[in-house]
């Protein structure tokens, strides 16, 4: 019963306020090690903002649950799964770029997305991923001469 009440009070807004408060607290603690000349403006800003953030924490704790219009439903569960999937895709894009470089990484990532997330046919996925890679290469590398990140794999091989 008590757990249910706690769960109801713990909203995303409260979680975010706690995160912001923790970040501000960490920065305030760090600012104590700065010299007076470098630290006074950050300290003024951080003390003021941390005070407001803690006030918001109290408000979220007191009223956050009451403001939540509905109890967690199947829809929320599905959304949570989709958010996690989106984050995983973003993480995989970063990993692809880090390993294979900007162009090759983007092509591999977009092919995987088109094939498995968008459920496009193999030929369509290949075509769209290659098209994206070609546009990026033409615009950035060929026409504009921008030096693109080569990726750890290609850096090691060549």
């Amino acid at each position, binding site marked *: 019963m008590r757990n249910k009440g706690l769960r109801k009070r713990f*909203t*995303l*807004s409260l*979680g*975010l*306020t706690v995160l*912001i408060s923790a*970040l*501000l607290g960490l*920065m305030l603690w*760090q*600012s104590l090690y*700065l010299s007076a*000349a*470098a*630290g006074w*403006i*950050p300290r003024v*800003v*951080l003390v*003021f*903002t941390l005070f*407001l*953030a803690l006030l*918001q924490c109290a*408000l979220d704790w007191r009223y956050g649950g009451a403001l939540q219009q509905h109890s967690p439903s199947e829809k929320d569960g*599905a*959304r949570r799964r*989709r*958010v996690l*999937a*989106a*984050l995983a*895709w*973003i*993480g995989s*894009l*970063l990993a692809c*770029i880090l390993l294979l470089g*900007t162009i090759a990484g*983007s092509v591999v*990532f*977009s092919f995987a*997305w*088109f094939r498995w*997330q*968008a*459920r*496009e046919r193999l030929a369509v996925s290949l075509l*769209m991923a290659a098209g*994206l890679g070609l546009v*990026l290469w033409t*615009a*950035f590398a060929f*026409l*504009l*001469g*921008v*030096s693109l*990140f080569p990726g750890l794999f290609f850096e090691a091989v060549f």
Partner: protein
Amino acid sequence: MDGSVFDAALEGLALVFSWPYILYPVAGTLLAMVFSASPGLNSSSLMALAIPVTYAWDPLAVMLLFGAFVGGATFMGSVTAILFNIPGKAQNAVTQLDGFPLTVRGEARTAIGCSAASSALGSTFGIFLLIALIPVMRHAAVALGPAEYLMLAVWGLSMLAALTGDSVLKGLIAAGLGLALAMIGHDPRTAEPRFTLGFHYLHDGLSLVPVFLGLFALAEVIHLAAEGRKTLSGRAREEDLGGSAMEGIRSVFQHFGLFLRSSVIGTVIGAIPGIGSSVAGFVAYGHASQSARDRSQFGRGDIRGVLAPEAANDAKDGGALVPTLALGIPGGTGTAVLLGALTLHGLAPGREMLTDNLVLVFVLIWSLFLSNWITSLLGLALVNPMARLSTIRTTRLLPVILVLAVMGAMQYRGLVADAVCAVLFGIFGYAMKRSGWPRIPLVIALALAPTFESNLHLTMRLHELGRIDFWARPVVLALAVLTLANLFLSPFLRRLRAMRQRREKQLR
């Protein structure tokens, strides 16, 4: 305007439209449009790339090309901001606040039309003001010191009161967080590293572009994926889209007072060296939101939220040439590179530039003017194909947006860490969006904080040494009055208006 200035203006105009010189601004504008549509790349990078290519050219061709680079880059960044929530440059970030919600509502055509019209008219306003000010601008630009810059930043920060959304407390915390995050890096006075936590990456501070791309573009990608929306506009066919380019153009004339005020804000802020180009749009947006009778739609797709920053952003280009040409002090990064290119061609800014090379100055100005109109007219011609992008299935669009946003974040400084930074801010931005936290105060505070902090230090030092009397400076006093009006007069008038409306309702 004296006769020599008028003659130089006419001679410059004739040169811009003469064959084959007309090709330079046209080609420059098209190049700038392509370049600025790629997130993270901007006119400064294009100009930097063009410097070695144009080294052997004659100064006239260089002026024509570089003027077009400055003018042609702004609009396309706004188009990507409106359509995909990806700002081409930091200054376009403010356009997406209301531009993207309009796309989501199926009114991308109206937003692009309004953006094109206010850009073209705003730049025209800025350029004509620049021409009118040429005889006096040398004296005006040197009259500004750290105290004025400080008050300008304070004025910009006071705009936050209007942008806090439903919760003032959350808005203030977001602004405080923005100020705190901007202090990461070296202290401007002592060069002491602050809040770097031992990470080498943080020594240079947080770059605005990855933060903007994360907070808005990546957060939107997560949001769209989470909502399972079929298309950006919620409509699958072009015929189902609402709004039109004409409606967007009409909105500029319906809110002509706001357009004029935003253009003045843009020109004035652009003329102040070192303030940064992203500030003009934010201040204009804040003004639009504060002066509106009904501001409930701001951030949800109010056309005035597109009009004001677009007019200011383009009017700023004219203003930014004032300190660059008159004093050799660039107004922003773009004008800094332009200054470098001019110096390489033996064109020293200052009195000589405004007397002996006045025709070349006008060539630059008219080229800027022409490129602004070319981009806007092309934008209007391409409204329908561009709006059609909002009917493409999100499963096909999201990987493209994702790749462009991550590339944009990385290309700005060439660091993979910037992409990681953008992703972290993307998750943070999504959490803010989901739980009703305003993101605008955070980015405005982040953009204004460096100006605020460095000038606060300078002003205090000068005051201690008895070199300035803070309250005896007319510009400081004028800005203080504007700040107070922002903080107290606008809410008071709004409350008065609400009371009057309530009373009228009761009487009925």
